[in-house]
Each structure stands twice: as C-alpha cells, then as structure tokens.
C-alpha cells in the first residue's frame, strides 16, 4: 500500500501548492488586502460640474500619495452636477474642511484620479462631509474648441 501512500502525498502536495497559488494571487498580486479593511475608511463627497472619465475605484490622492478610492458617482438631478463619493483611509483623518478636490489625468493618456489639496482650516473633514471647492475634469474637446474659437475671433 506504499504506492497509494505516495500518491496521496503527491496529491496533497499538489492541492497545497494550488491553494497557496490562489492565496498568493489574492494577497500579493491583487488588491484584496485593501478590500479587507473597508471598515477603516470614512466617506466624503464632492460635487463636480463634470467628472469626465472618473470611474468607481479611481484613486484619490493627496500630494501624489493614494489615500482612498472613489466608491460611487451619481448625478444630482436638480443641479445637473456629478456627485462623487469617496472612501478615505482613517489614518488620513486630518484633511481640513477647506480642502480642494480636482480631477486630474495621470500623464497624457493615463487614468483620471482625484487630487485633494488641503487648505489652512483648523477643522477637519468628518465622515459624510462634502467638499465645497472643486475643479472639474478637463475635457480635451472643450479645451480645443475654446482654443479654436479664440483663434478665430482674433
């Protein structure tokens, strides 16, 4: 029966390797670890005239450091503005209330993300607060259109 025993051992080894690979993919390769601590975030919102190519899960950064992610993008039906909801990591809980939110593009062709620029207020943003000062995404067609219009009027 030693033959069966060897076989069992090899099967066990194979299954262990496979499961290890799955864990490796989940924890080392993907962002599962950031999902695991969703309780450690707080929500703030910001409304933009135009949120451009921003998507759910786009990153939110302060001075280039990722502090959170976009969790929802909705339309304000009365003011026709885009309301962006984002989850910010609790360890960055000292964002002043007069923080500015802008939508930028990473590089010429990269993804759009939200950049927060802290102001000088002594009070900090709490869970559920809204950012008042925002700068919309730059829509390339609009910029080009304005440029051409200006050139034509000259």
């Amino acid at each position: 029966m030693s033959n069966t025993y060897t076989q069992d051992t090899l099967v066990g080894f194979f299954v262990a390797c496979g499961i290890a690979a799955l864990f490796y993919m989940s924890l080392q390769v993907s962002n599962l670890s950031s999902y695991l601590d969703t309780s450690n975030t707080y929500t703030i919102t910001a409304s933009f005239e135009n949120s451009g190519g921003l998507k759910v899960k786009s990153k939110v950064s302060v001075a280039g450091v990722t502090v959170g992610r976009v969790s929802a993008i909705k339309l304000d039906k009365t003011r026709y503005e885009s309301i962006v909801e984002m989850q910010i990591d609790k360890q960055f809980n000292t964002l002043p209330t007069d923080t500015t939110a802008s939508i930028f593009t990473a590089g010429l062709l990269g993804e759009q993300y939200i950049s927060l620029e802290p102001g000088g207020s002594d009070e900090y943003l709490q869970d559920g607060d809204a950012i008042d000062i925002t700068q919309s995404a730059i829509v390339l067609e609009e910029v080009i259109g304005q440029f051409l219009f200006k050139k034509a009027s000259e």
Partner: protein
Amino acid sequence: MMQIFQYLGASTRSRFAKLGRATFFLLHSLPGLVDVLRRPSLFIRQIYSVGVLSFLLITVSGLFVGMVLALQGYYTLSDFGAEASLGVMIAASLVRELGPVVAALLFAGRAGSALSAEIGLMKTTEQLSGMEMMAVDPIRRVIFPRFLAGIFSMPLLAALFSAVGIMGGHMVGVGMLGVDDGSFWSQMQAGIDFYDDVINGFIKSLVFGFVVTWIALFEGYDAIPTSEGVSRATTRTVVNSAFSVLALDFILTALMFGDI
C-alpha cells in the same frame, strides 16, 4: 446541389445528436457523487492522474510565459517610459487571460488526451462492458470521479500557472532588466482587482476545466472501439477542447470585462 443540402442537413443533425448524447452522458454520471463521497479514494486517485501529472508541465510553461511577457513588455513599455507598469502588465495578462486559457490548452493536451485514450481503451478492451456485467455502472464508477477531478484540478493548475508566471516575470523584470522592485509590486497591487481579475480568472478556469474534461471523457466513451477509433477520439478531444476554450474565453471575457 441537393446532395450538398442533404449532406449539410445530415451532418448538422449528427452534431446535435452527439451533443444530446453528451448531455445524457453528463447527467447519467451525476449519481457518481454518492460513490465519491462514500469512497474519496476514487477521486484522489484521479486528481493524481489529472492534476499531479500535469503539475510540472503547467509550472514550467507558466515560468517561461511569465519570463517572455517580462521581456516583451519591458521593451514595449520602455518606449513610453512606463517600465514601472511591467508588474501590472504581466499580472493582468496572466491572471485574466493567459493563466486560465493557456493552462486549459495545456491541460487539454496533457490530461484531456490521456483521459480520452484511457476511456477509449477501456471501451476497446471491454473493460466498460465487463463492469456493466459485474453490475457496476461504468459511467458512475469510472467517468464521474475523473470528471470531478478535472473540474477541481483546473483552477488550481491555472492559479499555479499565473503565480509561477508572475514570479518568472519578476525574476526577469526586476532581476535582469532592473525594474524597481517596489513599483513592480505596488503597481501590480494597484492595478489588479481581486473581484474583477482574480475571481473572474478563477471562474474562467473552472468553466474551462468542466468543458475540457467533459469533451475528453465523452469523446473517449463515444469512440469507435478500435485502435483507430481511439486515436481519432484523442485528436478530436484536443481539437474540440482548444476550440471550445478559445470560443468560451471570448464569451466569458465579454460577460465579465466588457459592456456588451
């Protein structure tokens, strides 16, 4: 002219008939679950021949595919000054596509053809018939444990393929080409989503495992019981599995990642 239509009609009909037989075959095997639960050793033996024997092929192939991806990706990305994205490029290609698809194609060639040949030979040498005369249902007893082992092993093999591929990519990208280790991993983790990528890749490999094993077992069982019939069944297994995997990959990708 009439003959062409007759030929097309007959061949379409025979294809449908075959699909019908394959479906009944699948349903017929399901009660085998009882036997597997009662005697897990039946199942473990099959994981050995389906999974363990494919282990080396899958891991070595995965390693090389990851290394090639790193080389190719590096030269393309460095034109845009985006070498730091090498990690995410390798991981995304492997986790979403190459892991499940290439592992399934290799699995069809290694385990699928072996299953077809084994079942076909068992039919040719009257082993299946002999079991029936011993009041043992061969579809329950022989087919189902193999089927289950195929579905079980495929996701593990695909995960191994991707994981080893990423390690191979890391080895070449960071070790040989000098991409920054930190940005390799951080870009990867930022770019690969657990649900969208890892889980979807896992589902893909599960579906591929199901389809490849089903085709392999049915072709073997449906083979004409001669040596020529068995060899043709083996060929058909590899061809049909490869075709089904690639076609299904398109459909699954469209469902998972596309907005169709």
